[in-house]
């Protein structure tokens, strides 16, 4: 019940127990009222009132216990979520570091290969005559096949 959130727990528990024990006390009083003839006319109203107070007290105690159990569950869920968020941040940091590391490995390897090409440039070009068709075929192979032709909006 939402309004329980605005009442301090200790006050709520005191009020509920107060209602419950008032009901029980009044009920016991109703049992002994037979021995006091002066109060006999009040017997029935006291029984009804005590029953209502006991029921209200039981309802209140049930609601209170239920509310406290849900609050505990919320606290547990919030702590699980914050733990997951912290783990998730760690994963992101690890992956970011790995991305930088992977890029560096690829870049370093590329530099080594480029140097190797430069060193062997004479040897590579010595006996090879490059036909323009080679460039055409390589460019065709390197063209993104998913690129849409100009004007194609599909």
């Amino acid at each position, binding site marked *: 019940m939402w309004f329980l959130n605005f009442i301090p727990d200790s006050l709520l528990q005191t009020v509920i127990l107060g209602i419950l024990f008032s009901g029980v006390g009044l009920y016991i009083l109703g049992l002994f009222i037979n021995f006091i003839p002066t109060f006999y006319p009040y017997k029935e109203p006291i029984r009804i009132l005590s029953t209502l107070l006991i029921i209200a007290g039981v309802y209140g105690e049930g609601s209170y216990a239920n509310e406290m159990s849900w609050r505990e569950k919320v606290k547990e869920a919030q702590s699980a979520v914050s733990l997951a968020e912290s783990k998730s941040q760690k994963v992101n940091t690890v992956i970011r570091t790995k991305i930088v590391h992977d890029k560096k490995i690829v870049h370093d390897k590329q530099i080594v290969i480029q140097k190797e090409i430069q060193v062997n440039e004479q040897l590579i070009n010595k006996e090879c005559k490059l036909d323009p068709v080679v460039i055409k075929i390589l460019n065709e192979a390197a063209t*993104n096949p998913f690129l849409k032709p100009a004007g194609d909006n599909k």
Partner: protein
Amino acid sequence: MKKILILLIISALSGCASHQGVPVTVKFPDVPQDMLIACPNLNQLDSDQVKELSQVLEVVTTNYSQYYNCKAMVDNWIEWYKAQKSIFDKVGK
């Protein structure tokens, strides 16, 4: 009187059952910005400038590098997703 009493007891016990659920939501984490970069297109040869095989080789090896960068990115995506999903699923249980 007994019927009213039973009704009142049932309504009293209903106090234990009324609640709307845990108001905590879990959001699937955002991916790091570094992983949202699309793979570039492969480099092409400039037919006016490329006259020798070494120049062709340079472009081809650069393209290989691009491929490996892209492969690393996809591998990292898979790793990121698996790790985050495992964390996310554990919270839901």
